Structures are given as structure tokens and as C-alpha cells.
């Protein structure tokens, strides 16, 4: 618990503050009473093995999935008490959801902007900027259904950014994105954080999180195992080793005999 306490902001509201969030499917606890604080202006990594509850936690924190209990505050606004106000402050990139892919890229981003209630002029200007930023300008007139996986990710990210949120919650933003696009996305996110925004990314690529983020939380089996700045969490070791230590399940040995080819 000491790591979490060390991370509590000394002043004002955190960008995202989670208290006791819980979600059960049947009798299986997907998220078990999680507490987490994401300081304003941090680049926060959420790491954990598959099925650890990362997506469930982020969905509950952004108003997409109703928790069984607990609270999530975005810049002090309770997500489940005042959903409309809270959602205006946050941009979300969900993993594994479809997009309205019968729209062209430009139409989809425009759609996201208009749903947020922005004016036509603002939307048009930002759509142009975002498509340019994500190298999608040439593909703006192509149906999203015909996009590659990486382009789809980028257009979804553009949808999350269009209303200039103060907090970005990105679930697996780098999955199936090619290295060049990933580097570009990282630059964009870095710039966003430098200008005062807060980013939360979930990932299971430790190297990426170690290089990119300044804070990290390790989640497994629906619980926070460690949270804090990268240095606090990894200590003397690398993040990957620390992660494996925390989560457990590392096998020692070389696998069964028949798998050794020599």
C-alpha cells in the first residue's frame, strides 16, 4: 500500500482518481476493489497480463461499464454521478470495439466531434489537423472498413482527441500499429502531456511503458500490485523483471523434452 500512498497528490484533484472500483461477472471478480490515482500531467502506464482487468477498469473509469461498486473521479467529477460532465473531460480509445466503419475516415472523426456538440467550423478545422497529424489526410476519403489495422487505430485515436480532452484513456493504443506510426503516436502523446494533458495507456509491452511513461501501475487478477513512478516500481531491476516477480507465473526450465529439437 505504501507505493500507492507515495503517489497520492498532495494538492487538488488527480486527473483520474479511482476508489474501490469493483466488477464481478457472475461469481468471478474481474476487478477487485481497486484504488488508483493518476496525477495531473502524468503519462501513466497500466500493465498487467491478459485478463488482469485493465480493460474492465478503464471502461468503468470512463463511463462505459457500470461498476458493481466504487467511484471514479475525472478531475474531481464523479463519472457515474455526472456522466455528461465527466465524459467531456476525457477522450477514450477502447480496445476491441468496432468503429462506424461505413463512414470515411474524415466522416468518422467529424461524427465524433459533432457528437461532442462542437460547432461545424471547429470540427472541420480539427478534423483537418488530426488527419494531417496522423498521416491519414490522403486516406480521409476512404471507408474505414478498408483501412489497415494501424490506420484504424489512428483514426480511433483521432476520434478520442477531437474534443481536446484533459485526460486521454487509451486501451492498447499500440497494438497492431507499425513502428513508424507508433513512434509518431508517441510523439503526439508526449507533446500532449508536455502541454499539461494527462495520458493513461494500458499495454503489455513493458519496454514501451518503461520508455514512454513516467508512472506505472501493475494490475493482476483485478488488483493493483504496485503503483507509482516508474523508478519506484521497478527499483533496481527492469520493469519487465519486476513485473514478472509481482505477477508470478514465470516457469523455470526448458519445456518438455520433445520440444527440444537438438
Amino acid at each position, binding site marked *: 500500500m505504501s507505493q500507492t500512498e507515495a503517489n497520492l497528490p498532495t494538492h487538488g484533484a488527480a486527473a483520474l482518481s479511482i476508489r474501490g472500483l469493483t466488477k464481478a461477472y457472475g461469481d468471478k471478480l474481474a476487478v477487485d476493489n481497486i484504488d488508483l490515482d493518476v496525477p495531473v500531467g502524468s503519462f501513466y502506464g497500466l500493465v498487467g497480463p491478459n485478463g488482469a482487468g485493465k480493460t474492465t477498469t478503464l471502461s468503468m473509469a470512463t463511463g*462505459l461499464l457500470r461498476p458493481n461498486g466504487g467511484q471514479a473521479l475525472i478531475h474531481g467529477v464523479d463519472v457515474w454521478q455526472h456522466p455528461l460532465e465527466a*465524459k467531456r473531460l476525457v477522450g477514450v480509445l477502447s480496445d*476491441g470495439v*468496432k468503429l462506424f466503419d461505413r*463512414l470515411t475516415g474524415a466522416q468518422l472523426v467529424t461524427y465524433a466531434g*459533432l*457528437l461532442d456538440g462542437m460547432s461545424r467550423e471547429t*470540427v472541420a478545422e480539427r478534423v483537418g489537423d488530426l488527419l494531417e497529424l496522423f498521416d491519414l489526410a490522403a486516406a480521409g*476519403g476512404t*471507408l474505414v472498413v478498408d483501412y489497415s489495422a494501424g490506420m484504424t487505430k489512428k483514426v480511433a485515436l483521432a476520434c478520442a482527441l477531437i474534443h481536446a480532452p484533459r485526460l486521454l484513456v487509451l486501451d492498447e493504443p499500440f497494438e497492431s500499429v507499425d513502428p513508424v506510426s507508433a513512434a509518431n503516436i508517441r510523439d503526439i502523446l508526449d507533446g500532449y502531456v508536455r502541454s499539461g494533458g494527462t495520458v493513461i495507456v494500458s499495454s503489455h509491452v513493458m519496454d514501451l511503458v518503461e520508455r514512454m511513461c513516467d508512472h506505472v501501475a501493475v494490475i493482476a487478477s483485478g488488483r493493483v500490485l504496485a503503483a507509482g513512478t516508474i523508478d519506484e516500481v521497478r527499483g533496481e531491476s527492469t520493469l519487465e523483471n519486476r513485473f514478472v516477480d509481482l505477477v508470478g507465473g514465470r516457469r523455470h526450465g526448458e519445456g518438455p523434452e520433445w520440444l527440444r529439437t537438438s
Partner: protein
Amino acid sequence: MVAHLVKLRLLLLKNSLMRSPWQLIALIFGGLYGLGMLVLLTVGLVALSWAPFQFARTAVVLGGSALVLGWIVIPLIATGIDQILDPAKLITFPIPRRQLLIGLTLSGALGIPGIITTLGALATAGTWWQHPLGAISALVCAVIGVLTCIVASRAVLSLSAKLSSGRRFREVGGIVAFIPLVLLGPIVISATQSIRGASDALPGLARALSWTPIGAIWTAPSDVVSGEFGAAGLHFLIGAATLVALWLLWGWSIERSLSAAPHTATRSTNAGKLGFFSVLPASPAGAVAARSLTYWLRDPRYSRTLIMVPLIPALFVFYSAIGRSTGMVNVSGPLVAFLLSVAIFSDVSYDSTAFSLHVSTGIRGAADRLGRATALGSIALPCVIVLCIGSVWFTASWSILPGLLGLSVGVLLSGLGLSSVTSARVTVAVPAPGDSPFKSPPGAGFTTMLTSFATWAILFVLVLPEFIVAMIGFATDQVIFGWIALVLGVALGCVFAAVGVRVGGRVFDRRAPELLAGLRKQV
């Protein structure tokens, strides 16, 4: 390996039943229905044994041919017959092709349609029970016939899947193929009318079919009974050769589809062109309407419904030409209004998880509802009005126009209001975006039907006032009732639409995350 595939098929069936009790109920109902059909069929087939020989033979051959044809055509249109064991999903396993085909065939025979077909075909032995040799040959031929059904159906499915692997082609092709199927009734009727001209033509038809691949195998036992062993041998050979040919064709097409990756066609427009988004108001509701309109025109799952708009009056015009009474043409206006307005009774289901964009942007429920209803209304209202005017012009009954318009507009607007509420409440299993619009997830049929019926019943109650008044007007020829119905229909329709958007919006605001959770479950 074959046993593995069959076991996998049964395991998949079992697991899909475990997911929801509704699926189990759907299976039980399907099973009961099939059992009833089977009992009737068996009784009929055995009863044929006392009928004149020619008659029995004609019936069996025609029935058998229709069965094979049904197995080929039905999966192409209403993919209720589940393609659970998709060969494409088995591509990574090193299964010898012959065993793969045998496994797929056997697992195909293990669905309800397969079992019914098998038992029904075996029951043809009952028709010839007085001739033991004929009965035995009927059993053998029944097995070949059933295998022909399954293999033919799989082969055609596999071939058509390959033909239509390009997205645009698949989408347009699916819709175009739909048109002749809707018009199947008229086509069959005109065909049979010319046959009925010579009412003894059925034995002739059966004789002709008996030499075709679909009918030959069903003819052989009757040849044995009548002692024409030469003809029996030939018919049997044709039937067996058909099965072998289909088998090879199927194997070839699977081989091809496993080795060739589907190609996709892309289409690009000018990025600056935003379509409906630049025409409709720049508000959340306007954006939802623009998105819905785009989908109505671009997504085959929606445009399938729009195709009905010209087809329904065409059907009625045709049937009225046969029935000598033109009155039924007038039904097309209200009917299209009804079909279109309830088409979106679970509109959110068609969004699939893309709906999460609506939840994460926190759009107000009323705006979402209003946008969806407006999009459909802006297409449906002109269609319905034109259909009403067109149909009274066709039937030369201008006096019923006000009543007809009142009823149609009332149905449309009330239906839109009702759908606005129901689609915030229920999610049903629908074809996923990009899937064939005719694909239905297994077990979905029954639950969807149940919710649809409930929606229809409520809609009927909502439009009862204008319905009754319009009916009085039609029955008494008093034009004043028509005008009252028009006023009632428009006024009540507007009220129900407004209330529906309001109430649906409130439900949406409360339940949006639950809707999304329901949609996630279906992926």
C-alpha cells in the same frame, strides 16, 4: 479425425445452448416443429403405398427433387442453417482433405434440418413396404439422396462464398440476389399456372426430373418396384454420379478457398466530401441522423429493408392481377410504413460495439433517438406518401386516399416513436457489420421474433384509433371518416413520435452502459 470434427460440432452446439436459455428454447421449438413435420411426412409417405403406383412415384420424385433444391437454395438466402464448422477456421490444422469433407458432411447431417431430412428420406421405404426389394433399395437411395442434399448445399455455399469474397461485390450481390427471391412467389405462380393449364403435367414433370441430377436417385426405388431394373440401374447411376461430382466440386472449392486469401476492393472519395454530415445540422442529433442516413444507403443490412419499398407494391400489383381484385394494392402504403418503422426496433444492435462512441462522448439519449428516427423518417415518409398516392391511382379509388394516408402516416410515426423506446431497451442478435445481411446468428431467430411480435402488438394498439376510423371510412364509403383518420393519424403519430423520443431518450440516458454491455456479449 472425423469423429473429432463431429464431436466439435456437437460441443459447439452444446456451448451455444449454454450461453442463453433462449437458444435452448429456440432449439426445442425448432425440434418440435421438425418432429411434427416429420410425423406428417412419414404418415403421408406410408399412405402413398395404397395410392396408385404412378401417383406415388410422382409424389416421391417431386418431393425428393424439391428437397435437394431446397437444400441448395435455402442456405444461400436465409443462413439460418448454421455454418458453424467453417472450413476457413480449420485451415491451420493439418486435416487430410478427405477426412475434413467427411467430417463436415456428417456434422451437417447432425443439425435439426439434417436429421429431419435423413429420417424423412428413409421413410420413403414406407411407401414401397409392400415390395421388400423396393423398400430396401429405397433405404439405400435415401442415404445417397440425403448425402447429395448436404454435399450440394455445402458445395454451393462454398462456391458462392468464393465468388463473393470482394466486399463491394458481396454487398451488392447479396441485395440483388434478394430481388428474384422476393419475387419467387409470382414466378412460381406464373410457372405453375402454365403447368396447371394441362393439369396432368405433374407426372410428366416428375418423369423429366427423374433423369436430372436432383431427381434421379429418388426414382430408382420405384423402378425396382415396377420391375424396370434397367431404368433403376440408370437412375441409380445418375444419382450416384451426381453425389461424386458434387463431392469433387466441393473438395476443389475448399482447396481453393483455403489457399487463396480473399482480396478486398477499396473505394475512395474526396476527403473533403462529408456527405450527409455537411448537409444536416451540426448538432449531435444532426450528426446521428447523418450517420444513420449514410448507413441506410451504404450498409446492406439496412438497404435490404429499403429494397422492400418498390418490391412490395410490385408483388401486390402482381397478385391483384391474378386475383382479379385490385383492392390489396392499397395495402402497400400502410404495410411499407409498418415494415420500415419497426425495422429499427433494435437499431442499436446494428451499431454493434461501435456504439461505444455514443457512450464515451456522452451524447444525450433524446438526441440519439431523434437522430435515428429522423434519418429513417426522412426516407420513409416520402416513400409512404408516394406509395399511398400511387396505389389509389392504380386502383382508381381516390376517395380512400385521406384515410389511407392517415393510417400510413400514423403507423409510420407511431412506429418510429415506439422503435425509439424499444431500441434503447433491447439488443437482439443481428448480423455483425460487414456480415451478410441474411446471416442470422444461431438461435437468434426465436428471441428476435418474440421481441418483434411484442413490438408489433404494441404498435397495433397505438394506431388503433386511426385504424378503426379509417376502416369505418373504407367500409361505409364516407369520405369524412377518411379525413378524420388523416387528422388522427398525423396528430397521434406526432404525439407518439415525440413521446417515444423523450421516453426512449430517458431510458437511453439511464441504460446506455447496459446497452453497450449487451452488444459486447454478442461479439
